[in-house]
């Protein structure tokens, strides 16, 4: 075998590996879309609704969103071409982050809604950034971008922080998720 043939073989190997990982990871895209819709609704509500309604809104969205993610994961498991034992660890990973945020807010007695939002956003941005290292570069990019957006909005437009995160953060998750889920290899 000559050098060019070896190069062609390695290129073919890399292409197939990338394509396989993208196809196997498509279900993650729909979970990102659901998360994006949750943020879009939740942060918009936080921006405009009276204080008394905000917690209830997030509670309803969280329950509905979690249910939708479980349904997606179950459906994907049945219909996906890849059987993985990782579904529940992945699910628990994200819930562990949520519990971590609750603990942070409680332990440090954070009562400002915008600060709570920033803590949650930065935690999940870091989660996405790390998660994407194992699954899809776009998830990492989305996580890093959300982190930058959250910090920028917090510092530059604090009075419109929630609206910015609803549109930009939610939109980024929905867009990235749709790209991952629907891209043809």
């Amino acid at each position, binding site marked *: *075998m*000559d*050098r060019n043939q*070896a*190069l062609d*073989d*390695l290129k*073919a*190997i890399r292409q*197939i*590996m*990338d*394509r*396989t*990982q993208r*196809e*196997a990871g498509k279900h993650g895209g729909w979970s990102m879309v659901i998360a994006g819709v949750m943020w879009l609704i939740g942060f918009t509500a936080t921006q405009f609704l009276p204080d008394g309604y905000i917690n209830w809104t997030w509670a309803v969205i969280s329950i509905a969103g979690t249910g939708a993610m479980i349904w997606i994961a179950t459906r994907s498991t*049945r219909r*996906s*071409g*890849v*059987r*993985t*034992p*990782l579904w529940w660890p992945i699910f628990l990973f994200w819930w562990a982050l949520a519990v971590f945020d609750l603990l942070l807010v409680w332990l440090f007695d954070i009562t400002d809604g915008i600060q709570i939002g920033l803590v949650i956003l930065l935690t999940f941005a870091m989660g996405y950034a790390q998660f994407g290292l194992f699954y899809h570069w776009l998830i990492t990019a989305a996580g890093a971008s959300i982190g930058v957006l959250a910090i920028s909005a917090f510092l530059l437009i604090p009075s419109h922080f929630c609206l910015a995160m609803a549109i930009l953060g939610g939109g980024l998750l929905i867009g990235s998720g749709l790209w991952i889920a629907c891209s043809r*290899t």
Partner: protein
Amino acid sequence: MGELNPLIHQPTRLRIMAALTSLEADEKADFVFLRDLLELTDGNLSVHLQKLEEAGYVGIEKTFAGRRPKTWVAITPEGHSAFSEHIDALEQIIHN
């Protein structure tokens, strides 16, 4: 210098091994998923999987999803090792 693996060197089997290697440990690929991913026919994929299974490079598990038969394919540790050695041999050709 490492040797190219003649079984894995065949283009279709090379692509099959590349696809299976990229999955996480304990993950298995469905036969139909592999077929569509690699744009092969049922017969073509079956023949190559059989050869790889006989060599101990892949494991094949047949189950049922309801009433529908499903075939799951996963690379074995021996397959991982053989594929890694084959890649090393390719890289040696490139660098020499």
